[in-house]
């Protein structure tokens, strides 16, 4: 009685045999399949094993309580309830199977035609689908009953038509997906007929999702059929689960137990079908049962073997009070499904001084971004700081509460992401995304915040600030979006700006401009800038100090001149060599001449 949204189940990786076997290993699925098997057996032999004739009335048996001769008693017309239940199973299951068969044939055939041939088939079938979905099934069935009479078989045939979109969409989606696959082309070139291609390469792929969908459609058909009979518009003499429910409902004040048996079989059968479908879908998606984000964290113990220390090049005039961000022995790990922990940052120590530009360089996967996220307290789900300390201007951030982090974020530490487009909320204007933090975090009035946002947009080099302010993210270019993100990051005057590969996603010409902008803003505001990058050119161009990261550790750190003129660690040398290889041959190179690409 409820319309269901149909999402195509995933394409299976393994065959049906193994799926069934896998299902039988799950207790929920095992019990459900067992129950359905019993129902199936009863549906076949129910009539034959009925102890009494389900149609014969006996005055003695009217609303009779359960007894030895009639284990479930008698109904309002004096018929044996058990016999009606057994025989009714045959009719109810048979009727639901009819609906399923009609839906399968129409849906699969339509989906194959529309998906494989496209064109007119496609248009017509999608229009028919929306037509069929436009009315509640029960209204259509009532209208059909008014025109065609009370036959359950007619109703279920029509219901099958109404449910066919469930299969149509599934098959259509799969067919459109594989139609242009190379192996289908190859089969066509090899001269296989369309029929064989469809059968072998298309239907075979969607067979498991179709079976799952069948279970769901079967459940809905059973419910709808029972609902129709319950309304009393079917042939009430014929025993079926729904008509028995109808009879019980009429006696709800005197003998409500009559409703129990049919209600129980309907509910259990529907549930078993949905549970089997759900478990099968989970199996196909290979999703292990979600343990939730707050599962008990795995134990982590510090490794016994100490990591080699980073090579530190000291520079003159280093005073401890200059240090703004003081990271010591930071270890970051992700909980794994097997209960272990994968370490992505392994003992990073990093000092960032007030007003300096610090480059954090290394190849992708070396742990740069994870280090940056740890400082912001924004590690993705499953990740956490396992050990070490992050001291930001006297505030310890490791283990700090969300409130402490929230107070530091935006106001004191800000962040410019890598990919501009995905980092703006598509549902809000750029202006409102700039104004919101200024009002909430810095407590500006709406007017002040707006004026400041426009100033900032102008400052970051956006030609028409007013227009960009009222634009949505999808209306501006990537370069503009990145400038807007930079404006947002500096809007609450942070002391430290973390730029995570802030130019990687941009056009080459725009990259240089954005880097210039970052440096200008940094100088103007005297803020520290942590530049996370894999590009040595960027480092050379902008940074005062550099830390080189490899496999979760910092291998070398020091002033940019030292790192360039006298790299000690072989990895730094390798990175260095890579950039030399990239640049055009010139005379002797001094580090400052290596410009951003």
């Amino acid at each position, binding site marked *: *009685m409820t319309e269901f949204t149909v999402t195509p189940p995933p394409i299976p990786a393994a065959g049906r045999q193994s799926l069934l076997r896998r299902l039988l290993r799950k207790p929920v699925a095992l019990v459900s399949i067992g129950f359905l098997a019993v129902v199936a057996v009863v549906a076949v032999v129910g009539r034959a094993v009925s102890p009494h004739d389900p149609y014969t009335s006996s005055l003695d048996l009217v609303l009779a309580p359960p007894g030895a001769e009639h284990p479930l008693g008698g109904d309002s017309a004096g018929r044996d309830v058990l016999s009606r239940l057994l025989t009714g199973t045959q009719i109810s299951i048979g009727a639901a199977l009819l609906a399923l068969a009609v839906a399968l044939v129409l849906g699969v055939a339509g989906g194959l035609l529309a998906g494989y041939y496209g064109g007119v088939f496609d248009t017509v079938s999608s229009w028919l689908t929306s037509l069929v979905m436009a009315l509640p099934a029960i209204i259509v069935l009532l209208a059909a009953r008014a025109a065609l009479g009370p036959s359950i078989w007619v109703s279920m045939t029509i219901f099958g038509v109404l449910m066919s979109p469930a299969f149509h969409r599934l098959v259509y989606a799969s067919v459109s997906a594989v139609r242009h696959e190379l192996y289908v082309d190859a089969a066509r070139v090899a001269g296989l007929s369309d029929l064989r291609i469809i059968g072998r390469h298309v239907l075979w792929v969607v067979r498991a999702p179709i079976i799952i969908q069948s279970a769901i459609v079967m459940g809905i058909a059973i419910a709808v059929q029972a*609902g129709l009979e319950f309304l009393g518009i079917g042939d009430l003499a014929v025993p079926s689960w729904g008509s028995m429910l109808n009879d019980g409902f009429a006696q709800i004040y005197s003998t409500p137990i009559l409703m129990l048996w049919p209600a129980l079989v309907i509910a259990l059968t529907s549930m078993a079908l949905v549970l089997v479908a759900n478990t099968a879908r989970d199996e196909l998606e290979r999703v292990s049962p979600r343990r*939730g984000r707050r599962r008990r964290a795995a134990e982590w113990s510090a490794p016994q073997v100490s990591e080699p220390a980073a090579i530190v090049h000291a520079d003159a005039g280093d005073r401890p009070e200059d240090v703004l961000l003081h990271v010591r022995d930071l270890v970051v790990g992700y909980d794994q499904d097997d209960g272990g922990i994968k370490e992505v940052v392994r003992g990073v120590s990093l000092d960032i001084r007030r007003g300096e530009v610090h480059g954090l360089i290394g190849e992708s996967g070396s742990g740069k971004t994870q280090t940056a996220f740890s400082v912001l307290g924004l590690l993705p789900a499953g990740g956490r700081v396992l050990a070490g300390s992050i001291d930001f201007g006297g505030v310890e951030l490791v283990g700090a509460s969300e409130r402490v982090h929230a107070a530091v974020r935006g106001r004191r530490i800000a962040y410019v*992401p890598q990919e501009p487009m995905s980092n703006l909320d598509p549902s809000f204007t750029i202006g409102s995304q700039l104004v919101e933090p200024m009002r909430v975090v810095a407590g500006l009035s709406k007017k002040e915040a707006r004026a400041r946002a426009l100033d900032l947009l102008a400052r970051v080099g956006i030609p028409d600030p007013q227009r960009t302010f009222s634009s949505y993210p999808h*209306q501006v270019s990537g370069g503009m979006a990145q400038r807007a993100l930079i404006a947002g990051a500096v809007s609450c005057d942070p002391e430290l700006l973390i730029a995570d590969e802030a130019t990687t996603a941009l056009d080459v010409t725009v990259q240089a401009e954005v880097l210039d902008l970052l440096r200008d803003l940094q100088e103007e505001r005297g803020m520290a800038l942590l530049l996370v990058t894999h590009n040595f050119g960027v480092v050379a161009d902008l940074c005062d100090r550099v830390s080189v990261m490899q496999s979760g550790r910092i291998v070398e750190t020091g002033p940019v001149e030292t790192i360039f003129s006298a790299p000690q660690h072989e990895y730094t040398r390798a990175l260095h060599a890579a950039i030399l290889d990239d640049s055009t041959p010139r005379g002797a190179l001094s580090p400052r001449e290596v410009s951003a690409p």
Partner: protein
Amino acid sequence: MGNFLLRRLLSGVVLVFTISLLAFTLLYANSENIARRILGQNATAELVDRKTEELGLNRSLPQQYIEWLTNALQGEFGKSWFTGEQVTTGVTSRFGVTLSIVLGATIVAAVVGTLLGVVAATRGGRTDSTVQVFSVLGFAIPGFLVALALVLLFSIRLGWFKATGYIPITTSFTGWLTSVTLPITALALATIAVVAQQVRGSVVDGLGRDYVRTLRSRGLSERRVITKHVLRNAGGPALAVLAVQFIGLLGGAVIVEQIFAIPGLGQLAVSATVKADIPMVMGLVVATAVLVVIVNLVIDIAQASLNPKVRLS
């Protein structure tokens, strides 16, 4: 945006028109059958002929349809063959009752489903598993069985609510509320499950989005990020689900009205169907189709107001 809505409106009109044509063909195709159904199996052929002529069923089907359509366009849907009641009055007088229940269930399902979905997505762990189990059960158990269980438990056993008897909202709001509490609960349960599942998925997905991290990095609180940004972006898909669910609720109401003896469209539909009161059935089908088209339009407008890409196109 205006263009978009106009197109949707137009396709809605075409849809209603097509449905009326199909329904008319189905219902009026076998005129002899209709007369016999009214008069009973023992009626003589002569009587059947006379009835057929009286109802105008002896004319060709296209002729009959054009006449019906001309009248329908003027708001005239004919009279019931049995009670003589105007179809238009019959439908409109019961329309509000059904609508109040179905809209009530839709709103309850939207609110409760969203809450459950958000809680499941943000809390995780046991809360999440509980919501998941509830979703599967709510999806699997037919709504009218839930309605029957509610009647048995709360009306007959506990006597908290009256099992039957509808009080119009215009008579007494609290009276209406107590008379629709159980029906709405029974109707809404499955939709709550579906909405919760959808919202949970969208919120889990949304929380992993890059822009959510960036908004957090600006110092916005978790609560603010979820209520303002994550939920706003989850709204679109949830509304699409709700549009489909509304049609299901309308169908569910037919059965639930029967259980709670609520004098709505469902009751009218069942009695008209059993008697083969064709003009009434026809009016009901058209009314339902129009309602579905209107609801879809409203959802389209809501979608557009949530999604700037739709709004600005």
